[in-house]
């Protein structure tokens, strides 16, 4: 569904994305993990047209979309959310979601009705008429999801929708994400919350310093020594292994 080939982006000497290739299969929840500064958000920005890649290509539904404008990519059915939530402050939750709905719906009344339906799906229907700026962090994350859903996407890229939520809020949001997939929307998520990655995603890539260092089922990936070292530092994998032997 989404095919990234040899994507590269350097910011001066920083290799934010170096020769990254991956293919997101249709109908799955896939994830992208990696330590801070690994280039995950940059990769999202490259895929969705917010940054222009230095080299490489992005194919979506069999068409080359490399360096198209974000709005054009959204029209073709791929939307992203933002790690730092970006509500339209001063507008109500309903109006916020309707902006997404307007991508496919001209009529204001129909877009507002659709916003209401989408709000129901993500559990925001009790806050429809509140100012988006008055929402809690958890509420804003739900709003990000709702706005993206309202565009009727085929693929959603979630940039850390669970970051900053407490464990009970995470437990509430995970079913929402799962329900999105049940409706036939493919999902690629960036996530730090390992609980979410492990329980949600069926396939995962690990990015470190702009390069893919591992991929596979989440359970396999987290025990990969390369991944452990990327997160915890050199030598850590060995030490953990030693300790486990001792315990056994």
């Amino acid at each position, binding site marked *: 569904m989404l095919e990234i080939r040899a994507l590269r982006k350097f910011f001066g000497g920083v290799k934010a994305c170096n020769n990254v290739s991956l293919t997101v299969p249709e109908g799955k929840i896939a994830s992208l993990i990696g330590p801070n500064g690994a280039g995950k958000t940059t990769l999202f920005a490259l895929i*969705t047209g*917010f940054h222009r890649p230095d080299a490489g290509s992005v194919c979506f539904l069999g068409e080359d979309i490399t360096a198209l*404008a*974000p*709005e054009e990519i*959204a*029209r073709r059915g791929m*939307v*992203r*959310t*933002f790690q730092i939530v*970006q*509500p*339209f*402050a*001063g*507008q109500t939750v309903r*109006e916020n979601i*309707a*902006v*997404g709905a*307007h*991508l496919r*719906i*001209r*009529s*204001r009344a129909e*877009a507002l009705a659709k916003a209401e339906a989408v709000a129901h799906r993500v559990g925001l229907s*009790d*806050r429809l008429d*509140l100012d988006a700026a*008055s929402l*809690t962090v958890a509420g804003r994350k739900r709003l990000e999801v709702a*706005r*993206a859903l*309202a*565009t009727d996407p085929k693929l959603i890229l979630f940039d850390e929708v669970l970051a900053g939520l407490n464990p009970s809020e995470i437990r509430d949001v995970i079913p929402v994400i799962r329900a999105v997939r049940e409706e036939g929307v493919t999902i690629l998520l960036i996530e730090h919350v390992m609980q979410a990655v492990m329980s949600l995603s069926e396939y995962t890539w690990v990015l470190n310093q702009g390069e893919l260092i591992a991929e596979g089922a989440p359970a396999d990936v987290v025990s990969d020594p390369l991944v452990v070292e990327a997160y915890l530092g050199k030598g850590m994998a060995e030490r953990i292994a030693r300790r486990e032997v001792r315990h056994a």
Partner: protein
Amino acid sequence: MRQLALLGLVFAIIGLAPFVISSDFTLNAVIMILYAALVGQAWNILGGYGGQFSFGHAAYFGTGAYTVAVLQVQLGINPWLGLIAGGAMAVLVAAIIGFSTFRYGLRGSYFALVTLAFAEVLRILSNSVPFTGAGVGILIPLDQGPANLQFVTKQGFFWVIWLITLAAFVTVWWIGQSRFGAQLMAVRDNEDAARALGVEAFRVKMGAIMLSGLFSGLAGVFYAQYFLYLDPYIAYGPAVSVESLLVPIIGGLGTLFGPLLGALGLHVISELTREFIGEFPGISLVIYGIILIAMVLFMPRGLAGLASRLRARPFGTRAKAAEGSHA
């Protein structure tokens, strides 16, 4: 819909003015308030709803004014046609300025500075070329009659400005109810988020600047026909640009009725200034500057915001409680 009904009611009441007001002085005041509301509403489309703060709305105003004047004086073309041509030329100028700024993603103060520069360029051009009458200005010959868009009585002018201003207000009402408006406000509040949701920010901003330019240009046409004299400073000078943005900022940015409230407020202020300070050249701009700073600091939502705050106060506690139960 309720807003449209209220709008109709307000303009119906204003429409009574020529029937109940016999003094030319008072009717002139009503005309000038409507005119200021038009100029402000034009700016409000781009600045209030689109979040693009232009400091050069004189570019559109002056183009409308000069178009109708030059067509009449140099080519003998009827000012009613000039009204259309003036609006069209202003839209063209707006499209050029919009394209050259939005295409390169200019925002905030950069956009403001470039629009100011465009207006200044046009002022200097109109000061230099012969067909605008250069620095001497251009005088539209007095030839009163409805066919010439000049009226013996103030009533005629009243209906012209009433109609154009009503058109501007209905347009803004439509913006508040339409997809275009929703997308425009989304771009204002967060351009990146809007684009991620498929809003074509460039196209939406172009639409806004052209609509804004249209009504500014029509205001310019009206000004030319009402006062029958233009020079580069009147048409393209900073006073018009400042008035354009001051009216909606006083009244309430991004609100339908804000510019009307702002026009009323500004009129009262300028009358008071004249009363107490007298005709002191440039004093009005000084006062405007002080008001602008005060408004931005203390009342960023303008008179309309104050009105809704006062209305909300009696129920304030209850509204709070209701919000609490949702959370």
